[in-house]
């Protein structure tokens, strides 16, 4: 085993342990803010694993989109719904937790048995391409052109939809214009004024 292989092995093991530990933290922490930060740890560790699997472009996209956008978005959502509420106890909730844990463990056992019994045929003879960016770009503009364009439409719809859903209740359809006043502009969605915080 050369030095490079040893470094790769050790860093893979460390990153895998970080992924599992941080994911358990996301699920098990009581404080939701701690969960959000450990979720950032999961994303960063997965980006490291991508680098170890020769996927540099995907790794950069993971850091930019997941850590930079999704995690920040989740933190903002936590701040916006920041209410220290004591959840009312639900009777026999531990049964649900126990059965969920059993189902998850059973699923993990099933997947483990399946993927250890399957004989994968790794193609070690092939060498990794020089630049994944060029290859991914060629894929995007040749055989994956339609999904690529559809993704842009999906992002536009998600952008507009998120704005429409998250805004305060609009007052379209109610009689808001008083006679003699200027009519409301057509391309404007009036919304209710924010109630003063009690």
């Amino acid at each position, binding site marked *: 085993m050369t030095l490079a292989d040893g470094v790769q092995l050790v860093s893979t093991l460390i990153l895998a342990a970080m992924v599992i530990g941080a994911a358990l933290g996301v699920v098990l922490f009581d404080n939701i803010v701690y969960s959000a930060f450990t979720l950032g740890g999961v994303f960063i560790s997965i980006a490291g694993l991508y680098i170890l699997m020769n996927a540099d472009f995907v790794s950069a*996209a993971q850091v930019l989109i997941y850590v930079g956008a999704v995690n920040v978005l989740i933190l903002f959502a936590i701040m916006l719904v920041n209410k220290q509420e004591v959840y009312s106890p639900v009777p026999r909730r531990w049964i*649900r937790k126990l059965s969920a844990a059993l189902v998850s463990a059973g699923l993990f056992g099933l997947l483990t048995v399946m*993927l250890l019994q399957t004989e994968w045929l790794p193609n070690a003879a092939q060498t990794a391409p020089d630049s994944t960016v060029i*290859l991914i770009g060629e894929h995007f503009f040749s055989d994956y052109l339609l999904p690529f364009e559809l993704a842009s439409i999906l992002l536009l719809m998600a952008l507009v939809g998120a704005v429409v859903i998250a805004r305060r209740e609009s007052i379209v359809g109610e009689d808001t214009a008083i006679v003699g006043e200027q009519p409301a502009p057509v391309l404007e969605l009036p919304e209710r004024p924010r109630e003063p915080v009690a």
Partner: protein
Amino acid sequence: MPLEFFLLLAAALFCIGIYGLITSRNAVRVLMSVELLLNSVNINLVAFSNFLDRQNINGQVFTVFVITVAAAEAAVGLAIILAIYRNRDTVDMEQFNLLKW
């Protein structure tokens, strides 16, 4: 590292995500669990692309698409949570019985 190691890691992450998805009471934590599920699938795709299909990396292209859809899903999901919070004044999943007969 063999391929099975990464697949096992992805399976473990997926099961943790499933557990969080079912048992969380905070709606934001449910969204975080969905992100865990999507990430485990991404690990699978990149691992297959690295070990079985090195020449033309189709798995990485799929991963980029999954990341795109995950970002859109997070934005819309958090907007829905904000709207429900404004109507119901809670983020407790046990209180969300809007579609329950």
